[in-house]
Each structure stands twice: as C-alpha cells, then as structure tokens.
C-alpha cells in the first residue's frame, strides 16, 4: 500500500507536468487542449530518432525534440487556433482533437507502430524508498517540475504574465490597450508545447517504452482530471491535482484491480474522481471560477 502511494506520487509528477500545460492553455485561450499529450509524443519520437539514427549527444537530441514540440504548438496556434478564435469553445476542442489525431496518425505512418525505448537522461543507482526503487530519472522529473512551477509563478506576476491573463479574459480589450494578442497567443501555445514535450521526454525512459499516442492514451485523461481537481485556472492547482490523481489512481489500481479483480481499475478510479469533483466543487480545489 505504501508502495502504491510512493509510485503514485512519482507517476503524478507526469500528470502534473501535463496538467500545467493544460492549465496554461486554458488560462491563455480558454480552450481544453486535447493535443497536449501529442506534444510530448512528438518530442520523444524526434529525440529518439536523433539519438538512434543521427547519434547526437543526448542533450542535443533533447533540445531538438523539445524545439519540435514548441514548433508544433506554434504551428497549431497559427493554423488552427487563431482562425477559430471567435467560435465556440467546443469547436476549438474538437479542433484540438483533430490535431491530436493527425499527429498520432502521422507518427504511425512515419514510424513503426511497435513500441520503442528511450534511454534515460541521467544514469545512476536507484534510491530505495519503502521497497520501491526510484530512478534518478524520476528525481529529475520532480526537479524539473518544481523548477517549472516556480518559473511560471514568477512569470505570471510579470507584465507579460498579466498580458496572458488579460488576453484570455478579453482579447478585444487587450488589443485595445496595446497588448499584442497574436504574440501572447504564440507564447502560450509555444510554452504549452514545451511543457508537453518535457513531460513526454522525461517520462518515456521511466515507463520503458513508448508508441504513437502513448501519452495521450495513458496520460491525458488523468492530466485533465488533475487540472479540473486543482482548478482549471490555477497553476498551483495543477501540481496539487497531478500528485493527487497519481496517488489515488495508484492506490485504486492496487485495491480494485489487484485485490478485487475489477478490470480497468485505474481508469475507473480516475473517472470517479472527475465526476465527484465536477458534481461537488466544479471550480476545483484552488480555482477561482467555473469554466462555462
């Protein structure tokens, strides 16, 4: 049981990283971004490709991979989000679904469907907590997560950060006061791409193997649940929510599936969390407003 909690905490870090990206996009554009997982998958595939075929050093491959993720975010902003700015948010959501699908299918075509492996960024002996071995890679993930959190919190207090919030609330008024809405939009989606890419890149070596769409299939719904629990407009909430979802899912998986034999226990637990939060406290733990 304690192991389940520990495992859950570290798994939750990935969810938190994805959730932060989701919340950032929501704060910036009031949109649920279903393609967030694909930013990660793309980064992983590019990095793996650079490592395996071009034999670049790890850090360089990672940088290239992350750049591709950022590029995808900005391309998506330019081609999809900006033309659809005035439409209903559901339309935008479906558009992000379309982008996610397009990326998954493209990776399926370009690469092989079979799972691949990505090396860890840092090597070393695992630390043992309560009979669970924690790889250095996982500590790296936690560390990057913390760094991201602090940087984002600081950023949002700056003028640029306020510009981001202003644009999400009223794009027209923001433009009137001189905020460049396209620039803000680009920053938001580029950052979302970066965050998604980091999530994928740091997580893939831990889970061992990756395949097209893996991050979306395994991580997107828990990440959304985490964002909702924490509050869709609260970055701090995304962290808290991510860890919470990770722990509860892990414990639930252990209890339901392994002990009670209910199939798909982890998905069931996450779904239950989502429903309960939305019914009881829709604005989440730390959120201030309920999304319409």
């Amino acid at each position, binding site marked *: 049981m304690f192991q389940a909690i520990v495992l859950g905490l570290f798994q939750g870090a990935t969810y938190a990283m994805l959730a932060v990206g989701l919340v950032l996009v929501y704060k910036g554009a009031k949109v649920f971004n279903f393609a967030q997982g694909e930013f990660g998958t793309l980064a992983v595939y590019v990095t793996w490709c650079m490592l395996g075929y071009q034999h670049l050093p790890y850090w360089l491959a990672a940088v290239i991979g992350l750049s591709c993720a950022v590029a995808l975010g900005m391309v998506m902003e330019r081609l999809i989000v900006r033309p*659809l700015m005035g439409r209903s948010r*559901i339309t935008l*959501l479906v558009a992000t*679904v379309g982008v996610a699908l397009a990326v998954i299918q493209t990776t399926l*075509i370009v690469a092989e469907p079979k799972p691949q492996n990505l090396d860890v960024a840092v090597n070393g002996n695992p630390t043992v907590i309560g009979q669970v071995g924690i790889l250095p890679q996982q500590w790296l993930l936690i560390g990057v997560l913390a760094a991201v959190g602090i940087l984002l919190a600081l950023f949002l207090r700056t003028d640029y950060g306020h510009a981001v919030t202003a644009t999400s609330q009223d794009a027209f008024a923001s433009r009137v006061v001189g905020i460049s809405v396209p620039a803000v939009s680009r920053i938001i989606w580029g950052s979302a791409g970066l965050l998604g890419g980091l999530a994928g890149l740091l997580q893939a070596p831990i889970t061992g193997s990756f395949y097209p769409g893996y991050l979306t299939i395994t991580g997107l719904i828990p990440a959304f*649940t985490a964002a909702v629990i924490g509050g869709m407009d609260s970055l701090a909430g995304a962290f808290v929510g991510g860890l919470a979802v990770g722990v509860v899912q892990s414990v639930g998986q252990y209890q339901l599936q392994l002990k009670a034999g209910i*199939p798909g226990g982890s998905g069931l637990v996450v779904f239950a969390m989502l429903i309960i939060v939305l*019914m009881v406290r*829709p604005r989440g733990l730390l959120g201030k407003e309920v999304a*319409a």
Partner: protein
Amino acid sequence: MAVAAQAPEVHVIGRPRFVVTSSGLVGRAVAALALALVVFTIPLLTTSVWDNIVSLAAIYGIIGLSVNVITGYAGQISLGHQAFVGIGAFMSAFVVQHKFGFVAAVVAASAIGAVMALALGLVALRIRGLYMALVTLAFGVMAQDTIFNWRSFTGGGAGSEAPRPAQFASNESFAYLCLIALALMVMVDWRLSKSKAGRAIVAVRSNERVAATLGINTTGYKLFAFAVGGFMAGLAGSLFAHHEKFVYANNFDLFTAALPWVIMAVVGGLGSRAGVVIASSFFATFSYFFPSAKPWTVPFIGSVGAQQLPPLIGAVLLLFTITVYQGGLGQQILPYRRWLAGGRFLEHREEALGIPGQVLLVGFMVPFAFHLPWQFCLFVGALGAVAAGAGIRAHVLTRPELQRRRATVAELEAEQEEVEHETLGHLPSSIGPRPRRASDEPTLPMPAVPADAASGAVATADAAQAVEDSDAEHAPTTRIPAVTDDQGETEVPSAGDPSERPRRELGAFRRKRGRT
C-alpha cells in the same frame, strides 16, 4: 370599402415561394427513385465480400445519425460514444447466447443503449460544455476498460460470440437487414426534426431560458435527445455485433471507434441527416478504396502502407471542415437536397461555384473505389468537372439573380421601396425617411367597421392599405379599427367592465381552450 367584405372567412395569406412545375416534380421523383434503387440493389449485384462492406456502411450510418442527434441537435459533444454502441453490441450477444432470439437481442440492445445514454444525460444536466466533453471522453474509456471487460457479461478479453440468426446468415441478407434498419432510422430522424421534439431540442440547445418560456420542458427534452441517440447507437451496436459475429472490447477503442465517429458526424455536417449518413458510409468504406497491394516507399520516411492513410485523411478532413468548409458535407450537398425536396437547385452564387469541384471529387473517387489507376480516375474527374462547369454556367446565365453584377441606382431604390412596403405589412414601415408624395392627406377618414368577427381580419387589411397611402408624419389617431357598438359610435377600448368587452377574433387564430 369594408362593408363589401361580408363573405370571406378565409383570408388568404400570400407568401412568395418557389413552386415546382409538374415536370420538375416528375424529374425529382425519378431522380429520387433512381437513387433509392441504386442503394438498395448494391447488395444484389456485388459479391459477398462487398455485401459485408455495405452492411458496415449502413451500421456506421446509423451510428452517425445517433451522434448527430446528441451532438448536432442537442449540442452535447459525445466523445465516448463507443460506450453506447458497445453496450448494445455486448447486450445483443449476451441475449442471443442465452437463447432469447434475435429480435429480443436487438430490442434489448437498443434499450440498454438508451438507458446508458440517459444516465450520461442526467450527468449532463449538472455539468456543462467543455467539462461534459471531458466526462464523456473519460466515460467512454472507462466503459471500454471496465464494463466491456466484465467477464461474466462480455467474456472478458476473450470476447463474446454473436452468431447471426438463420434468416440473415448470408452476407447479402444481412446487408439488406442493415439497409432497412438504416432507412428506418433515417425516417425516425426525419420525423424527429420535423416534430415538436426536434424543435424543442434545438431550442433548448440555443437558449435554455427562452425555450422554457416557450413552454418546453428543458430537462425532459435534453434527456429525450440522449435517449433517442442512445437508442440508435444501441441498435447499431447490435447489428455490428452480429455483423462481426464476435465482439471484443477493443472493437470500441477511443481511436478506432469513438473519435472517428465524432469526426464523421462533424465532417458530414452536424444537423444534416443526408450529409452525416453519406460521410459515415464513406468513413466505413474508405479503407477499402486503397488496394492492399504493396506499400509505397516514400523518401526519408520509409514504406507507407496504403491502409494507414484513411485515419490521417479523416483527421485532416475534420480540420478542414471546422476551419474552412463549415457545415461539412451537408452544406456542400445542400443544392441537391433542396432540389430533391422540391426547391430550387441553386440559390446563391457560391453554390454554383462549388459544383465543378464536387463533380471532380466524386468523379475521382468512384473509379478509385474500384481500384482503377489514379491517373484514370483523375481524368474522369476532370472531364466530369469541365462538363459540370459548362452546364452550371449555362444554368446560371438563365438566372439573373445568381450573376454577379452591379445594381443600378434605380434598382436599389425600387428594392428599398419594396422592403418598405413588405415588412411590417399592416403597420407602415419606418425604414428610412418616407418619400413625400404629392397627394398627402393630413388625416385618415375613420372606416366604419361592423362588429362581426368575419370581417375583422379583412378590415384590418383594408385599413392598413389606406394607411400605407398616407404620409407617416401625419400619423392618424387610430389605425387599428376601433370597436363600434350598435349605434355605430366608436368606443376607445379600455380596461373597463369585463362583461362589456366585445370579443374579436384575430382571423382564424383562436384561443384553443375556450377562454372567455
């Protein structure tokens, strides 16, 4: 002038409408019949393998319709639709395994589909918009992982057997069964959209409060929409199970089922029956267009199997539909639908411009589906497009309103006057300053109106006609005929004693429930 109108009970309301000529009617009937004939004789003419594809296309058509009811009419995005179809499939298999017969299986499947959708509908009452989308997504995945893996119900990972009934064992007969089911569901959808339920659902989607003040039970109709959609999905699921003869949980995957189904409904055009059915059939059969022969080698990427293209094309079509071609296929085929329903073929210039492109596309796709070389398909398409273009051009030249030209000043003025006279028919319009006319009467002679009901409406028309001839600036005292009592004196209506108030009918629009 008013007294002459003793007679007419019937006040004819004229409305400028396009009416089909009898030859036009014949043409449309022949076209519709030919279309129906083609669709329904396909199973007869093709091999058993193609019959299976036809069944699948029909099943997808029903799925598309069910997504259309929930997402297109009720506006609730359903990213977990595989749950409804899947539960129908497994229920149907379950019932047949327990020897209750095929009919019972289909009924049970549709019922449980409706029930499950209803459950989600109850959730939708509390949770709205984007969050609901998330809930449906999570629900669908959860259903696939948990419910469909429940060993006692679905056989767990091993899957569940769903044999076909004896009467429909052959592929051909099953294809007909599916086509008939599709036709029935199209009819149900048609009646839904043309009846009070369909209008209520759309009104509730548009603005709940307004819908409530129109007498619509908003909660009831939201749930109704989910139930109908779920019913259709369950039915499709049952047919799907028996089509495959074996159901597995991973038939209802997020990426192979739920998301493509949403895509095909969106690409088909939400709210457009024909578009959704055609797009769904297309999505079902699309992968068969590509020959399963050797894959292509693309530089730098490696080998690309033809089978891998359709899902990507689907996602790209979705993005195109959302951004550029809004209204999806339904919007593109609007001229044909309108024509078949007895209206004009073209009403806007943009429609005319789009037709050659459509012919090119269809002309390319049909031979391509039969695995003819793509160069030939392109040639056929181009030929058709050129012919269509010439035909459309000839047609447009006969219709001046479709041609682009600059209106003359005289035409603009005439249009302005026409608008002024037509809108607010009985009440003089005040759009723009009224032109002064030579013969202006400062006041309007009060028409003497008898108190009987029948002439009420006509008198209104006459009085209004008289009013239109005067200048609005000298507005007369009362334009609406006042009530007269037996002495012929005018009496200003007032909130006086109820028993003395004379009752007047507004033409034939009577109070329905005998109120005094």
